[in-house]
């Protein structure tokens, strides 16, 4: 045996208590890592592998205000422009409003669209020609083909919400994404068809344009903004990345909010861990006194208790960080786990309440089951629910669930490190005060204490 073995055995002494502390830390860490990952995805989305010369022109004030279609020609005339395409975010509802039926739908101009999005390729020339020629035709990404099993000739009806129009679209083909951009679950249809349904040449939410080089953007973007200054629709020209981040501004000070939430969560779990540790060490007063009588110094006691705190927090930390790496990129699994955890917590609290109330009434059998097996019953039901949901839920992905704003929820190294940091902080700070008190306690006071 070593002092470390002794610490481990101490940490596992009250298994239920240690498990509860570890699980609450694990859940808190998952929440923290989830929030931080979302924040990073929004404020610092992953860079495309090669620099893009594509950019966005939109209304200076808000996307919803739209730009006149005549702007297309004016942008096209600018120095350094290769091509421009109008894009209207149609949104609408497919089947129902469930998140799994959510995917991006754009009204586009077929020719210029595929020139500006040079990373998207129609599956074949025939399909591209069919798209150009079919008034109500649409192309869908491979991921949608996979998800819904669309075939050429299928009809897709989208109910309009922003627009007072319900396009009935005919699948005329598919497109492939030739790079790593998450654009394979779009549906694109002819903007001419939208105009027709609305009875006017509609304004568009944005123009996407291609410059002759990524370097050109530095001068081109301000020049475009200048070009439309003092017009009835002043514009903002920005890179695709800046465009994605602009959605964040629409949500207000998300960064501050998320950091506050993270602090609150960490603080709460610290309090839980600290009070548990204080209770644990208090129960061991006699033993601490005995150790001191055997020759353990203040430093030894301090080390033993803080070490135990770190062991408990490390169990929870690894569980939480590891779990986050597995669960966060898979929203279906995350939802299933969250549902399972919530049900387990509710049942657990109910069981606790039952055992408390019945203790007062001294009803025996139910109370016995509730207090002895309550935690296990709660956890089992939670696991079963999670399992059922995983088995029955369709696979979800972040891109479609977030309306295209969150590409993926891969936990980044710095977020994992933050989790480790919180783990250590919780381990040390939750146990330091009880450890300090135990180390200062006099042997006699400790020995006098009756168990």
């Amino acid at each position, binding site marked *: 045996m070593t002092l470390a073995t002794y610490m481990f055995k101490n940490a*596992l002494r009250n298994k239920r208590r240690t498990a509860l502390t570890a699980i609450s830390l694990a859940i808190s860490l998952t929440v923290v890592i989830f929030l931080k990952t979302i924040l990073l995805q929004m404020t610092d989305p992953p860079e495309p592998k090669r620099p893009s010369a594509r950019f966005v022109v939109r209304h200076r004030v808000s996307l919803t205000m739209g730009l006149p279609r005549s702007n297309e020609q004016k942008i096209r005339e600018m120095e350094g422009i290769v091509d421009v395409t109008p894009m209207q975010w149609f949104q609408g509802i497919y089947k129902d409003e469930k998140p799994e039926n959510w995917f991006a739908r754009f009204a586009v101009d077929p020719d210029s669209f595929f020139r500006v999005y040079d990373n998207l390729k129609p599956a074949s020339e025939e399909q591209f020609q069919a798209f150009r020629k079919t008034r109500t035709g649409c192309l869908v990404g491979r991921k949608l083909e996979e998800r819904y099993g669309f075939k050429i000739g299928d009809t897709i009806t989208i109910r309009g919400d922003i627009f007072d129009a319900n396009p009935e679209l005919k699948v005329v083909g598919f497109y492939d994404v030739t790079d790593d951009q998450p654009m394979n679950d779009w549906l694109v249809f002819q903007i001419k068809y939208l105009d027709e349904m609305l009875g006017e040449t509609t304004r568009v939410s944005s123009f996407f344009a291609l410059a002759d080089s990524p370097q050109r953007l530095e001068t081109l973007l301000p020049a475009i903004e200048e070009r439309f200054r003092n017009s009835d629709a002043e514009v903002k020209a920005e890179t695709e990345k800046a465009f994605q981040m602009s959605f964040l501004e629409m949500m207000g000070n998300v960064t501050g909010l998320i950091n506050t939430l993270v602090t609150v969560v960490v603080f709460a779990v610290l309090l839980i861990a600290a009070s548990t540790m204080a209770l644990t060490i208090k129960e061991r007063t006699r033993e601490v006194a*005995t150790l001191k009588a*055997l020759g353990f110094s203040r430093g030894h006691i301090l080390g033993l208790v803080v070490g135990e705190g770190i062991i408990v927090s490390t169990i929870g930390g690894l569980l939480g960080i590891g779990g986050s790496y597995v669960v966060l990129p898979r929203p279906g699994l995350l939802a299933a786990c969250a549902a399972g955890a919530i049900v387990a917590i509710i049942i657990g609290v109910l069981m606790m309440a039952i055992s408390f109330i019945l203790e007062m009434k001294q009803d025996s059998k139910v109370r016995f089951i509730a207090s002895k097996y309550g935690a296990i019953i709660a956890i089992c039901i939670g696991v079963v629910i999670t399992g059922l949901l995983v088995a029955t839920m369709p696979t979800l992905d972040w891109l479609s669930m977030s309306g295209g704003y969150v590409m993926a929820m891969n936990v980044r190294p710095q977020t994992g490190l933050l989790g480790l940091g919180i783990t250590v902080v919780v381990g040390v700070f939750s146990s330091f005060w009880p450890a300090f008190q135990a180390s200062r306690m006099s042997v006699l006071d400790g020995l006098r204490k009756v168990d």
Partner: protein
Amino acid sequence: MGQVGFDQGENTISHLHQNLGYEKSSPFGSLLEMAIVAQTTHVSKVYKLAAAEVVALDEVNIVVNEGDFLALMGPSGSGKSTLLHLIAGIDRPSSGTCSVLNFNLGTMSESELAKWRNQYVGFVFQSFNLVPVLSALENVELPLLLTGLSSSKRKAQAKTALELVGLADRMDHTPRQLSGGQQQRIAIARAIATDPQLILCDEPTGNLDSVSADAVLEIFHTLNTQLGKTIIMVTHDPHAARAAKEVRYLEKGKLLPAGEKPKDW
């Protein structure tokens, strides 16, 4: 009373010394004269309470020599435990000095006292105070964790101590799986694991039935006569006191002269 395996006595005893591979300087310069193990000079302990002062010990002078087996007796509240705690360095006197194994305890810091206790003093409690999650062997190994012995030496030393108390066959059992008497013998093994010169015990048989108590007393007897350990044992039990070579009485904080008893004893 023959259940304790002392037949292997000599072997086991030499092992206990051999295994302890770390340097432990003898506190005695020379052993030509009978060495004094513990000595208190004019030691008093006064508790100042809000209502009154409690004099737990009053000018106690006692000398315990090497090889002594002293029983401390006296009525409840007479100061027996207090005196034992002062000698163990887990309490400090209000006045007077305690010199134990040639260390002047009054001049030592708390951490020096802890280290000193670990090396030179074994303490046995009335309630055995074993760590419930550790096996018997691990409990005995606890004080050895502070010695810097290698892991295999620690284990060997702990086993030797367990053999001495006749419980080597129970080394993997946890305290819960042992009787009170067996637990107390494990506690004694823990106290002697670092091969201390001085063993202090506060009512070691207080929680035991008479058969278990006898087993414990026989172990103390062996430790005293064969290993030459000096033992100071606080007890209420006249039968236990008979195991000692000498009995001294405390009454109202005063140490009675050798041979004298409190009036109603």
